[in-house]
């Protein structure tokens, strides 16, 4: 009896004490405010940090600090050399890339043309399964690296001329190749990254060695943070901030709470829930800047209901874009009336013409004359926060066209695509696009070309394909843009999709930092941001 009682009275307090003691030993990471020379930036857990495998924003934000790109973009979004001394070509097919002297990797290795060639070959080699491999498909010899058992391990189009110069031969002339080089898939990899030629060390991405303005401090702490510090041997303009902590958040709302409490310095995306209060909460620390995202509604070509372009135009005319961007997105997005993003060289306002203007009477007349369907479905993925605007759009169509309109949610984006691929009746469906590099071709090619990677709706117009192809093979940018614009005019006639909105960076920062700038790819400019003294 006595033993039992003793056990009962000791067990409980002991368990509690043990629990509390375990809690106490956790150390002090994460929660505290950052030091005066450290700038903390919100990211989500990156999927990968190998440049050729980094295709989402969070990973891209981190590698943009660890590496320096060959080219970056100026205020007009034209390419300017950074790590490259020059990128030249006489025929847009054979490109000579000359590197700036003085770049070293964070382990002291000198950057040579081999480092670029090895990295690109690694990225293109299909068995490595790199997400950014499609960036290399324009280089001659890319095909030989594809398939389960590729014929070659290196692309024939990459040729070293000397330690700082190499030549890239494309399989066809491509005017925007220099623009493309700004993407993070084109970063170099040091010899130290490879355990054997063409074989990446398995732990390389835990602490990537780059040649950029920042180097890793420790390793990638999964689900927690990634810390980087200024690399003193960086040959170009040094960054203002000494240390940067990329803090990993699962939810934007949690990051927003930290931002309000000055616990986090930069939040690149204000969560939608907080948009209505953010301006009052943050004052002039609430900022917006252009970015490239483009939201639209697509018509599957297999659906007979929407085969008449007039039906598609009528639906477009019946949508009041201004109202939706104002009431639902609190002006954090802009109404779209063109088929490419306004950030691009060659963009023109209102290329959709009359079809982009809100005109309910004309819309109803046109819709009835063209024999539009009596019931319209708008499909969307339910996990992306699209319900509000889809419902608003459905209500507008209902009121303005006098037909039945319903929004239909699929659980995930993959489910939506799956239905479209199987040609099941989905009605109209929503899609979005973010560019990889600022060129009209990066919208016209993947979205509207017959074989475009994101042309899920099956739009095909031979004349359009021809113009885009001619544009990308044009000898000068001016001629290329002219062709691209002619191609865009065809879209205005065919109306394969309804442009809805262009996105903007809506970001905020704490009172402890200044000079926060965001680029077109939703990344914070790490060279400019600095601690406010």
């Amino acid at each position, binding site marked *: 009896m006595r033993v039992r009682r003793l056990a009962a009275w000791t067990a409980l307090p002991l368990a*509690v004490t043990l629990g509390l003691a375990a809690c106490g030993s*956790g150390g002090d990471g994460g929660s505290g405010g950052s030091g005066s020379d450290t700038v903390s930036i919100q990211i989500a857990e990156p999927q990968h940090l190998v440049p050729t495998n980094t295709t*989402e924003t969070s990973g891209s934000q981190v590698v943009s600090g660890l590496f320096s790109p060959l080219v970056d973009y100026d205020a007009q979004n034209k390419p300017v050399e950074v790590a490259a001394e020059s990128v030249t070509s006489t025929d847009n097919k054979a490109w000579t890339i000359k590197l700036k002297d003085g770049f070293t990797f964070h382990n002291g290795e000198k950057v040579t043309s081999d480092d670029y060639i090895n990295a690109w070959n690694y990225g293109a080699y*299909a068995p490595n399964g*790199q*997400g950014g*491999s499609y960036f290399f498909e324009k280089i001659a010899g890319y095909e030989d690296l594809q398939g389960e058992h590729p014929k070659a391990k290196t692309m024939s189009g990459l040729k070293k001329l000397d330690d700082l110069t190499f030549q890239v031969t494309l399989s066809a002339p491509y005017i925007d190749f220099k623009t493309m080089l700004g993407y993070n898939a084109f970063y170099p990899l040091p010899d130290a990254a490879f355990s054997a030629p063409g074989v990446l060390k398995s732990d390389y991405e835990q602490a990537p060695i780059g040649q950029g303005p920042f180097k890793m401090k420790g390793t990638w702490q999964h*689900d927690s943070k990634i810390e980087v510090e200024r690399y003193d041997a960086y040959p170009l303009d040094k960054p203002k901030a000494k240390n940067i902590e990329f803090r990993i958040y699962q939810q934007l709302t949690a990051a927003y709470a930290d931002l309000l409490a000055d616990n986090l310095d930069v939040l690149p995306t204000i969560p939608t829930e907080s948009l209505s209060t953010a301006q009052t909460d943050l004052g002039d620390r609430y900022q917006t800047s252009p970015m490239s995202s483009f939201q639209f509604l697509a018509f599957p070509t297999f659906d007979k209901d929407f085969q008449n372009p007039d039906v598609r135009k009528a639906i477009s005319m019946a949508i009041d874009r201004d109202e939706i961007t104002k009431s639902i997105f609190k002006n954090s997005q802009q109404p779209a009336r063109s088929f490419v993003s306004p950030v691009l060289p060659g963009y023109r306002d209102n290329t959709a013409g009359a079809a982009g203007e809100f005109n309910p009477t004309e819309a109803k007349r046109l819709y009835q004359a063209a024999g539009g369907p009596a019931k319209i479905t708008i499909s969307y993925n339910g996990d992306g926060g699209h319900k509000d605007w889809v419902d608003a759009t459905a209500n507008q169509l209902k009121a303005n066209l006098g037909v039945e309109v319903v929004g239909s949610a699929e659980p995930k984006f993959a489910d939506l*695509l799956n239905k479209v691929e199987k040609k099941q009746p989905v009605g109209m469906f929503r899609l979005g696009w973010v560019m990889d590099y600022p060129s009209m071709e990066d919208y016209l090619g993947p979205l509207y070309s017959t074989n475009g990677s*994101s042309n899920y709706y099956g739009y095909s117009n031979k004349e359009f394909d021809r113009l885009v192809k001619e544009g990308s093979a044009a000898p000068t940018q001016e001629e290329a843009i002219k062709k691209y614009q002619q191609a865009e005019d065809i879209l205005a006639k065919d109306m394969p999709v309804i442009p809805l909105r262009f996105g903007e960076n809506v970001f905020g920062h704490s009172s402890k930092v200044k000079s926060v700038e965001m680029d077109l790819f939703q990344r914070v400019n790490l060279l400019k941001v600095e601690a406010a003294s």
Partner: protein
Amino acid sequence: MFRYILRRLLQMVLAFFGTTLIVYALMFAGQGDPIQALAGERPVTAAQRAYLTEKYHLDATGVGGFFYRYFDYIRSLLQGDLGQSLTGRKIGEILQQAWPVTVKLALIALAVAVIFGVTAGVIAGIRRAGIFDNSTLVLTLLVLGIPTIVLAPLAQFFLGVKWQLFPPTAGAEPDFYALLLPGIVLGSLSLATALRLTRTSVAENLRSDYVRTARSKGLLKRRIVSVHVLRNSLIPVVTFLGVELGNLMSGAIITEGVFNIPGVGFNLFRGIRTEDGPLVVGIVSVLVVVYLVSNLVVDVLYAVLDPRIRYE
């Protein structure tokens, strides 16, 4: 007693494999396109699709494919390898990182529930229908009525952002203080339930025969309550708290999300969202073990609390 525990442990092994089979089958059946789920809305290249399909045997479908993949999973599990998530991270490492912080959080929540819930419950039970009893009734009803999804952001906003009493988020390696607020939020629901259970139980036991006997024997009231009544009243509370410990660990999805704690709940949520079968199965398997062990502890504690219960 020893034989009883041994028997229970053996049953656990069976239960463990049974659950992994069921959970694996459910994940398998519900799997759409994990590769597209991983890529979000970007198009997936053929090369990457082929690479991931081969690496994770995603082309093995149907009943045959299911057993192939399940036994493949079990084989590596028996070798201590939980497999890799679709982004290439070792699931063992993910769990190793996620569990300690979740356990800490659950223990704080449980401690909050025990310390405040049981104490207040005893007081409310003794002073039944008094001011304290009535006010705790209202308070607990209020807490039970507010879901965590409302309570957590509210607590974060007022205590973390507005008055800055606590850090608004905890992060991956939080100290005790940073975990206190999420722990209280998580534990509040259990606290309310524990309080009401204790109160009813104490109130009932106070009217029982043995208490009358003890009182007529001339025992001090303090001794009657602390030794006789409390011990007998704890049986339902211990049952509840034992099961609740498992719930606190698996059910912290919302709390962990709001306070940015990369624990078990968050990883479970991520696994389900990205259709990451092995990750979900790994987490659920460990959760099953936690449930089984806490149930065993509860059963053993019964014998401690009530001498009439014996296990042979």
